[in-house]
């Protein structure tokens, strides 16, 4: 009589398990030796399915630094029209008695600070035009600056 293993051809599966164990011990050895090497990453990427890798990469996507968001120019309430609304929360700016609206550099698209801050914490693109908000160097307007030697302290 044939054995269960023969009938179900489990030898192959056994070989697969061995290969996996090899891979695992290989990774273990390498990790002990040199932390993260390219080879180690290569082996790891063999184990992690491609679709999952993409997701992992997405999660790592970095947004804008906090100080960038803090430094976005505020839009004065008098410059907001009655119909203007934030395209993220879809609410009219003037529904709020004290709207806190900011303008992105370069493309000048406006949003509630509260709304766009959440988005920019994980992305660097303008929600409306996908402009990379970090790709523009800030321009300092010096045309209207008067240089005063005494900083106006004694005037």
């Amino acid at each position, binding site marked *: 009589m044939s054995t269960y293993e023969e009938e179900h051809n489990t030898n192959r599966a056994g070989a697969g398990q061995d290969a996996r164990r090899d891979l695992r011990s290989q990774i273990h050895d390498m990790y002990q030796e040199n932390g993260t090497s390219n080879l180690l990453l290569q082996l790891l990427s063999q184990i992690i399915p491609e679709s999952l890798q993409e997701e992992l990469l997405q999660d790592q996507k970095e947004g804008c630094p906090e100080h960038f968001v803090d430094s976005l120019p505020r839009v004065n309430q008098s410059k907001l029209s009655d119909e203007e609304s934030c395209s*993220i929360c*879809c*609410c009219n700016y003037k529904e709020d008695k004290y709207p806190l609206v900011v303008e992105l550099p370069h493309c000048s698209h406006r949003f509630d600070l509260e709304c766009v801050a959440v988005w920019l914490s994980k992305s660097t693109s303008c*929600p409306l035009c996908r402009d990379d908000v970090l790709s523009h160097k800030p321009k300092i307007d010096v045309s209207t600056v008067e240089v005063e030697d005494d900083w106006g302290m004694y005037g």
Partner: protein
Amino acid sequence: MASLPKRIIKETERLVSDPVPGITAIPHEENLRYFQVTVEGPEQSPYENGVFNLELFLPDDYPMEAPKVRFLTKIYHPNIDRLGRICLDVLKNNWSPALQIRTVLLSVQALLASPNPNDPLANDVAEEWLQNEDNAIAKAREWTNMYASKQ
């Protein structure tokens, strides 16, 4: 249940008061983040005269995160797999919080009008599409008649 953001309420209202031609989206009575969607196949596409059922779910992080959209009706399309999952940039990396339910569904409808076999999700369908386009289109039309015909 947590309260529904104003934006979702506004979007839902507008979907009813000012619907997109060829598209309906109705929220579920018990879960206002879950929508039953129908999309009509675009004219002059193999999906013409078909009405496709989809489900759309707004995750907790919406609109910072894209809605989850899935075909419920079987469809022969290189960018839609047998589970109804859709390969569409705005549902993944190209999502933006300025997009809405209506714009996403318009993109889905546009995907029906222009299948892209070079960025496949259903590999067997994409292969057929690249090797014998006439056959693939005929099959898509056949599936539309079989599974998506108007009642």
